[in-house]
C-alpha cells in the first residue's frame, strides 16, 4: 500500500496492540459466523462485561465475553475453559 494511502488508517496507532488481541478478535468472528449467530449475540456479552468493569482493558472484556458466549452456546463448560489454559 502506498505511504499516502496508509496514513489515514494508521493515525500512529496499531490496530491490535498484541497478536493475541487480533487472534481473539478473529475467534469471535469465527464463532458468530460458524454458529450462524447474529453479531448482537456476542455484543450482548461484551456490553455486560464492559458494564461490569468499565475501566478494564477492552480485550480483557472481549475474551471474557467470548468465554461467556462459548459456554452459552454449549461449546464448552467453564471447567473446560479452565482445563484448556496452558500451564505457564
Amino acid at each position, binding site marked *: 500500500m502506498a505511504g499516502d494511502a496508509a496514513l*489515514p488508517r494508521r493515525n500512529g496507532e496499531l490496530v491490535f496492540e498484541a*497478536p493475541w488481541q*487480533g487472534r481473539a478478535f*478473529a475467534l469471535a468472528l469465527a464463532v458468530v459466523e460458524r454458529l450462524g449467530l447474529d453479531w448482537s449475540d456476542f455484543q450482548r456479552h461484551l456490553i455486560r462485561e464492559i458494564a461490569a468493569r468499565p*475501566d478494564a482493558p477492552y480485550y480483557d472484556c472481549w475474551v471474557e465475553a467470548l468465554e461467556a458466549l462459548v459456554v452459552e452456546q454449549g461449546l464448552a463448560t467453564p471447567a473446560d475453559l479452565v482445563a484448556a489454559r496452558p500451564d505457564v
Partner: protein
Amino acid sequence: MSEHDDDGHHHPQPPSPIELRARALEDILKGKGLVSEEFIDSVVGAYENDIGPMNGARVVARAWVDPAYRARLLADATAAIAELGLGGPEGEHLVAVENTPTVHNVVVCTLCSCYPWPVLGLPPNWYKSAPYRSRIVREPRTVLREMGLELAESVEVRVWDSSAETRYMVLPERPAGTEALDEAELAKLVTRDAMIGTARP
C-alpha cells in the same frame, strides 16, 4: 502450543492471564473445527491492512465530487458503499450523517464499541474508553474542544449512539479551496477522526 510472535516485536514478558484464556479458547475452538489458523491469519491481515479509514475516505471523496452519489449515500449508505466494493461485517445497517454549516455530527457507542468497520476499520482505544462513551453524550462540545475541535455556538451538535443495529459514519464538509483537487487528492484530506466526528478535514 505455537508462539505467534512473528510480527518482529519483542515480547519478553510471560503471557498475561487474559492471553492464556484467549489461547485456551482458541484451542477449544480449533479442536471443534470451528476456526483454523488460516481463518485467523486472514482476518487479522484484513483488519490490519485492507479494512480501514482509507476506504471511508474514498466514499467521502466520491460524495464530495458527485452530488448524485452523495444523495444515494445519505439515502442508503450500505448500498452506496457497495458501489465502491465495500461492505461486510458491521456494515449491514450503515447510515451516513452529513455535516453542514449549521450541523455537526459525532458518533459514539455508549455501551461497547460499535463502529462502521467496512469504512473505518476497527475503532481506536479512545473511542472504546469509558470517558468518551459517557461524556460525548453528556457534554459533546467540551469533549470535542478537548480533542481540538471548536464549534461555533450557532452549530448544532448531534450525537449518534451506535448501540443498536445501526452503524454511523460522518460525511464531513468539503474544505474550502479544494475545487481544483481530484477525487484521489480529496480522499487524502479525509481523516478517520473526521468520519467519527471528532475532527474536521
